């Protein structure tokens, strides 16, 4: 919960968090080591120095650390757990639904547990998706179209098998399809992170929402074009947001383009925890104003109303969260006891 100087309470849903194990003990091969090293480089490079973690903590953090970083030190009210399996790189997977479900089980009012599927897993994968959905009552999945699977270095949402899985998701009530389209790992065929296949499936599956994580960066122009044409395509801010610290001028351009093309109702905040932590991201975001010269160019303004939507209301809408009811639950469970009667207004 973030409180402004005027006493407004802003309900925060973190659209993108992980509870991973990238430790050496879990690494299967050199790729596993290089994967967590690459994440750590993102973390080191884009975090303010005071927020930088030791490598060992970054490789594997415990449940309490995560809870505190999100909900006690940080302003998150709820967080979506997005799995990243990477079973070719890690013995027990990097960040599986099973691993994440432990967090959900301990704090059911705080977490939304998402699943995952991979269309290359065939009929067995479809059965697993049914079982996973039944067990965890999934409302969303996270897809990594560039994940390696044996000889395959990625897939497209337009593949026939992807359609079968999306049809299954629709039947199971999994409405929110988060798709990693961003710069984190780049496969041999760069098209595996291309945003064009979103266009096709968003038209074909009108009842599903497609949340393009990392807003397709570095192909922002293609993404904005697609998102404008489709009513059910959203932008996830993870990875774009931390530039607010190191390159605020650049972030101003990105958020301006998103506000202009995609609009304030279809942008979702996400910390990408443990790469970055909510406290500093939201402090900076709340204090942020688009500079006058950029506003003049794009006509975009990041109003308080827009910030409120981006930080929580948009995610609440697509995940069917009743904000007032949820606040009551969290308060009843003592979840706000640590909050002083102070405000979090930007300095």
């Amino acid at each position, binding site marked *: 919960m973030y409180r402004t100087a005027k006493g407004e309470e802003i309900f925060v849903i973190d659209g993108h968090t992980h509870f991973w194990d990238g430790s050496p003990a879990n690494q299967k091969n050199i790729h596993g080591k290089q994967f967590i090293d*690459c994440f750590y*480089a*993102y973390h080191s*490079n884009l975090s303010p120095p005071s927020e930088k973690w030791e490598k060992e903590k970054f490789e594997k953090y415990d449940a309490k650390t995560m809870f505190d970083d999100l909900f006690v030190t940080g302003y998150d009210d709820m967080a979506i757990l997005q799995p990243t399996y990477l079973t070719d790189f890690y013995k027990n997977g990097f960040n599986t639904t099973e691993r994440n479900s432990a967090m959900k089980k301990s704090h059911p009012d705080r977490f939304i547990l998402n699943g995952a599927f991979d269309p290359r897993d065939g009929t067995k994968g479809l059965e697993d998706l049914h079982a996973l959905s039944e067990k965890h009552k999934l409302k969303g999945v996270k897809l990594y179209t560039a994940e390696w699977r044996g000889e395959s270095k990625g897939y497209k949402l337009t593949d026939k098998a992807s359609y079968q899985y999306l049809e299954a998701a629709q039947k199971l009530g999994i409405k929110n399809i988060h798709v990693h389209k961003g710069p984190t790992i780049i496969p*041999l065929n760069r098209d595996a992170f291309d945003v064009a296949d979103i266009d096709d499936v968003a038209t074909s599956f009108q009842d599903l929402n497609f949340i393009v994580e990392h807003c397709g960066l570095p192909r*922002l*122009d293609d993404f*904005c074009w697609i998102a404008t044409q489709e009513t059910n395509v959203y932008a996830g801010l993870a990875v774009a947001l931390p*530039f607010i610290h190191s390159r605020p001028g650049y972030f101003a*351009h990105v958020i301006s383009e998103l506000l202009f093309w995609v609009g304030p109702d279809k942008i979702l905040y996400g910390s990408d925890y443990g790469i970055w932590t909510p406290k500093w991201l939201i402090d900076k975001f709340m204090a942020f104003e688009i500079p006058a010269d950029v506003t003049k160019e794009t006509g975009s303004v990041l109003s308080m109303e827009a910030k409120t939507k981006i930080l929580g209301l948009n995610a609440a809408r697509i995940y069917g969260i009743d904000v007032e009811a949820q606040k009551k639950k969290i308060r009843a469970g003592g979840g706000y006891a640590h909050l002083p009667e102070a405000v979090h207004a930007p300095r």
Partner: protein
Amino acid sequence: MKRGVEGRERPRSRSSGDKQSQVWACLRDVMDPELDESVTELNFVTRADVDSKDRVYIEFRLPTYWCAANFSFLMADDMRRAISALDWVKGVSVVLGEHMYADKINAGLAQGRSFQETFGAEADGSLDDLRQTFLVKAFQRRQVALLNHLVGLGLSPAEIVSLTLRELGCLPLDDAGEKLVQRYLERRSVVGPASGDGLAFVDANGARLGADGLAGYLSSLRRVGINAEFNGALCRGLLAARFDLDTPFVPKSRTMPASPGT
């Protein structure tokens, strides 16, 4: 300024130090296709040695283990081509370090194979198409930077769109402006013939720009710049985080004295 001795007569102009300077000068003109910056400016090149038989050894590394294989291959190929153009060179070895496809790329390079031959079915599209795509993006990015500069100096849209290449070269500009012109001219021929009487500014298809539509044209190019900026900031930062570049990076081989008499 180019270091080294090319174009000047010196008694030791064919010494190994001078040859090495020529190699560095060649590498300085090789660009990361996506960032449109020199591979030496980006600190990618860690070794550039010449042996007694005039064979050249290049080693380079990239911001992440995962950097796209096609870009990696393309840069290596560009380095090999640039250095092979030196008349005294008897062989070039280019080696990529610490990359997921290092072994495959290095083997392909060593055997003189193409990207497609090296990667087979996993490769999608030839490198020539990719090279052209990014040359056009570089042209657009350099053009929008120069156009914004000229607009800032008070040139009207009508003046700007009717400038010839010769007139562009004669504009009284400060150093920053001169540099923008120079960088733009290096890529102007990507989109069409660039003779002195030709228009200085055309779009990516080589068509002339309209004075009325110039503002709209500039804002449509804006996102090309935003993408490039994102990539540039990210890649520099990741390289620094990966290899600890806090200490200024000086390749071993460059610390060798290059001038005669030392």
